[in-house]
């Protein structure tokens, strides 16, 4: 009995940390501009696809990872410079719609360049699972959990302890005031896309050995990551992780103890309930509008 429960929990934590890792990427752009970047899933996909293509071409894993992260960062910067910047004075909603268009564009380019076949990466530290009291955990899951935790710490440090992070937050609160205080607002926005792309790429690379990847992998990861981020409170790293884990564990326990046919329904019910009673998510700060 206990072994079964533990296996369900491990399954939930594995899935949850994948959602969390995908959700973390939404935080930076949201914190800089209150824009929800719907091309975040495509950053994840580009990271995963680029690294698996490079590994298949014979590069060692570390080199493929570095190149894939750099490539995704360039894509993120280019997206901001060529698509977002020209519409900088537009509404947040307009910019969100631009990111949706960009996601479709990036998916199309990936399909043309890398083809339609799904791809994979070898697990970083072997395929042999770890046994815990009769339950089995894939080694790659530890990578996912570990990297998620590391990224939360980094994000927290960046937004609270560095001048640039504070400048980013200031830009999102009041762009004019930030500009008057000497913050290069445009540079902040451009860099926020580059950094989000890096976060997405890292996530995409780490989860590829578990989930595999294809040109359209970004749709699912982006959607689940977005759910995790909203559930935890947008812009909050720890919130995204808590939200992702909650969704993942609910799915696994639901599939295990009730029925796998209704697995997705449990996650949606939880999200609806939380957002009904806590509209800003589990860890979101309450925002007040001045009239």
């Amino acid at each position, binding site marked *: 009995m206990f072994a079964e429960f533990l296996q369900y929990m491990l399954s939930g934590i594995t899935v949850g940390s994948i959602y969390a890792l995908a959700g973390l990427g939404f935080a930076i752009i949201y914190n800089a501009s209150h824009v929800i970047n719907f091309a975040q899933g495509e950053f994840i996909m580009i990271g995963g696809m680029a690294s698996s293509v490079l590994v298949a071409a014979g590069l060692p894993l570390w080199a493929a990872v570095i190149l894939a992260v750099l490539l995704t960062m360039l894509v993120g910067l280019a997206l901001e410079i060529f698509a977002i910047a020209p519409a900088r004075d537009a509404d947040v909603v307009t910019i969100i719609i631009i990111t949706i268009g960009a996601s479709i564009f990036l998916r199309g380019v990936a399909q043309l360049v890398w083809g339609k076949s*799904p791809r994979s990466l070898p697990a970083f530290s072997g395929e042999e699972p770890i046994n815990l009291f009769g339950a089995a955990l894939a080694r790659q899951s530890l990578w996912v959990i570990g990297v998620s935790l590391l990224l939360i710490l980094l994000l927290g440090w960046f937004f609270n302890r560095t001048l640039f992070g504070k400048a980013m937050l200031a830009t999102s609160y009041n762009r004019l005031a930030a500009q008057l205080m000497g913050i290069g607002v445009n540079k902040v926005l451009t860099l926020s896309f580059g950094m989000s792309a890096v976060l997405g790429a890292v996530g995409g690379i780490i989860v590829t050995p578990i989930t595999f990847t294809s040109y359209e992998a970004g749709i*699912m990861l982006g959607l689940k990551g977005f759910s995790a981020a909203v559930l935890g409170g947008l812009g909050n790293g720890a919130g995204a992780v808590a939200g992702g884990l909650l969704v993942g564990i609910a799915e696994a326990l639901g599939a295990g103890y009730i029925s796998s046919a209704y697995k997705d329904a449990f996650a949606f019910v939880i999200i609806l309930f939380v957002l009904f009673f806590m509209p800003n998510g589990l860890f979101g700060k309450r925002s007040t509008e001045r009239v």
Partner: protein
Amino acid sequence: MRTMRTAGLALAMAFAATVAGQAQAADDIKIGSFVSSTGVMGYMGDQEKKVLETYVERINKQGGVLGRPLKLIVYDDGTEAEKAASFTKRLIENDEVDVIIGGTGTPQTMAAVPQVERAQVPFISLAGGIVITDPVKPWVFKTPQSDKMAAEKVFGDMKKKGITKIALLSENIGFGKSGREQSLLAAPKYGIEIIADETYGPKDPDVTAQLTKIRGTAGVQALFVFGAGTGPAVVSKNIRQLGLTEPVYQSHGVASKDFLRLVGTAADGFRLPVDGLVVADQLSSSDPQKPVVVDLKNTFEGQYKTDVSTFAGHAYDALMMTVDAIKRAGGTDKAKVREQLEKTKGFIGTDGVYNMSPTDHMGLGLDAFHMVVIKNGDWVLSD
């Protein structure tokens, strides 16, 4: 005056050109097609489109059919049933095609069915769902084996091995969903009892929860996984992670090289039903399908430098069967072509040997499938 004459001349020339164009068009045999070369089923439709293009070109080089060249019109429905429906309309009304080949998936096919029935155009589908030809619709045919046959082939193999109680793990949409329904229907006929019935989503990153539940069900002798795409690859890895020891069967949905590349050796020992094309090299030389599948494999892989998959075979069979029927009908009269398609007997394709009849518009028997076992990340024939 002079301008009038020029205008008149231009008009006459335009008229002549139109008439000539029509004469040209009437001479062509128009093969209309809609496949999903992008979207979720892009990896399937892409191969279908390539095969149609390659073989139409080849047939035209050899002088066409009945001395008339083939003209292929292909649209991409992006794996959306609504688009499939509107392209079908376009093929029938604007392009005025003689026959339609297409419908990569069952939903796309079923979206086209009402229109081809109304317009009375022969239609050969490339999808596996049994609803396409059961009940029989006069103008609708299909080439791939049905999901029901895959289930029956697997259950037959289980019966031979004395397996009676199994767990079914299927994808919760499309291919896997239809496969689950057909498996539940077919199981009693083979004395098989499905004592655990679980599902997973096509993009789920982990299915160890479902597998743990199956492991905890007493009496399970084998596991049958019904799905396509990356899902079954995730399932295979999770089966190894949990160390399940029961025999594992997969469906024909994973009979592609992509699957083997994804799982590496994690699927070793799994058994599945595949069509002749997948094991072209391993078929005995006395097998009537051997020359057909080897020709398609060599032509396709020579031209596109990528592995041929079972989906290419569905399109190949549909095109060749159409050409065969048009030859026997002595022209493109739609009613005659339909009648000849229905009379197709002993036609050797890549999916098997077709014997159509007024009550069977798919025409394949269970011998169209071969059981294979996966060894060292490759298929080995085990019939």
